[in-house]
Every structure is written in C-alpha cells, then in structure tokens.
C-alpha cells in the first residue's frame, strides 16, 4: 500500500513538472530558429575584431592553431569561404565557428560565434578571451569594429 502511495506521489509530482517543461518547449521551441537574446548589431560587435593584416590565409591558419590551443578539435575548414569550425569537449560541448574576411583596405575581420551545449554564447567575456588568445598567436592587436 505504501508503495502505491509513493508511486502516486511521484506521478503527481512529475506530471505537472513534465507538462511545464515539455508543454512550454512545444509552444516555444520554434522561436529558437530565429531567436537571439541580443540585437544583431550588439552580437556582431561582441563577436568581431579587426586585425591590421591582409593575409587571410595566414589568419585562418592562426585561427585554427588558436582553436587547437584552446582544446578544440577542428570540424571543418574552408579557405575560399574563410570559415573554420571546431568543437571542444570537456564535460560539455562547445562549438565555435570563426569566419575571416577582408575588412576595409588594410584589415582583416575575424568573427566568432559559439554555442555551449544547447545555448548560444552571447556574453562578451568568452569572446574577449578568445580574441586575447588569437591576438597572442597573431602577434597583432585586435581592434573593436563598429
């Protein structure tokens, strides 16, 4: 009898909980397709830096080396598009895509975006850390881009 009481209690506890979690997810999950926390401009600013170089290929190679230094395994790289993606596994899964392209007449812009497990990284600090590591490997200063 006691067993049944506990089982009923568990079901009572679990039912609204799972309804709250899953019901919510079903209604709102489509929003994630276009969803971001910050504005488009704000996100670009956080995720982009410019370097005083026109060496796109060299920059891509340095990005790859920096990702490896940070513990990433490279997933893909494409020279003509200027993109590199990598994944870091450390009890979590951190995916990052970095794009490199010419910026103005003398610079190259580097943009990184990351997802931590199933959440977009929109906090400026991790990007600051990434660009700090990249600066060291590039032997160049990373400039903020407007």
């Amino acid at each position, binding site marked *: 009898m006691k067993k049944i009481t506990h089982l009923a209690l568990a079901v009572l506890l679990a039912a609204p909980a799972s309804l709250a979690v899953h019901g919510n997810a079903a209604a709102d999950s489509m929003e994630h397709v276009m969803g971001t926390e910050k504005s488009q401009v704000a996100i670009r600013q956080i995720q982009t830096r410019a370097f005083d170089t026109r060496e796109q290929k060299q920059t891509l190679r340095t990005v790859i080396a920096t990702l490896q230094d940070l513990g990433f395994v490279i997933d893909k790289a494409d*020279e003509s598009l200027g993109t590199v993606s990598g994944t870091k596994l450390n009890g979590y899964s951190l995916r990052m895509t970095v794009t490199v392209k010419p910026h103005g007449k003398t610079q190259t812009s580097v943009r990184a975006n990351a997802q931590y497990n199933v959440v977009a990284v929109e*906090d400026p600090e991790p990007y600051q850390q990434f660009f700090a590591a990249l600066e060291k490997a590039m032997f160049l200063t990373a400039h903020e881009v407007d």
Partner: protein
Amino acid sequence: MMRRPLCVLVAFSMIMGGCAQQIPKDALQLRPESLELRQLQTRSFETKDEKKLLTTGASVLQDLGFNIDESETPLGVIVGSKDRDAVEAGQVVGSVMVAVLFGVYMPVDKNQKIRASLVTRPVDKKTNMRVTFQRIIWNTQGQITRTESVEDPKIYQEFFEKMSKSVFLEAHEI
C-alpha cells in the same frame, strides 16, 4: 521505497538545471598547461611538402581505423572519426552487483565516437603537424555519459611513432 520520489525530484532538478546552464568562465581561456599540450600534440617534420605530409597523415588515420570526414588541403586540415565499443568490464560488474543488491538496472557505457583533427603548418623549412583527439561516450540507454579531450601523452606518442613509420615506409614506397 523512498527512492522513487527522490529519483523524480533529482531528475526534475537536473532538467531545470540543464535549462539555466552557463558557459564556464575558463572555457575559452588559455590554460597554463596549453603550451605543454601543444608540445605533446605537435611534431616537426623535415619537409616543405605540406601536401605530402597531409597525405601521410591521412594514411596513418586510416591505419588507426579512422574515416576521413572533412579535409581542406590549402589550410592543412584533415578531420576523421571512428565509432567503437566503450564497454568497460569494471562498470559491467558494478552494474550487475547493483542489480542483484537493489534490483535496479544501472546503464553502463556502450559506444564511443572518437574524433581527430590533424593540422599541418609550414614553419620555415619544416612543416609542423598537430593532432588532437576527443571522444563522446554513450551508455546502453543512448545517453551521453562522457565528453572529453584526450590528453594522455601515450596516445600522442603512439600516433607520432606511427607517423614516423609511415613517413619511412612511404619514402621507400612500401
């Protein structure tokens, strides 16, 4: 029999905890041991022929049973992976003991995916090669139980031993 509601509560708090996860503060920070790891994962080869070194790297990955998933020769990148068994005898024994003592089935590790990226880079008259491995482990219920970077020095030593051997074999066309 207090275990059941407790399990539900624990599971529930885990689900809720999963919603509010945040990236660890040091996830994108260079660690003091980064340099050491770089040395462990890198070797320098006395060649300027980057493409040939990449080809040799690809054949070593094949020697180890990896399939090539991606490659971009102009950037010196090869990505490979393999799926393997992840059953560990100790875990199975533990699970059986738990089943016998408490009548509860405890899932054990079953499969793993091992990923490797191999990157070459010309440095003066030589070419550097850096390889990194990581793996994901799933249990008998299909849940991910572990995600990790491989940092065991022995693995990298063995890889580069095979790499040196391959360079030798291919130089002699064996």
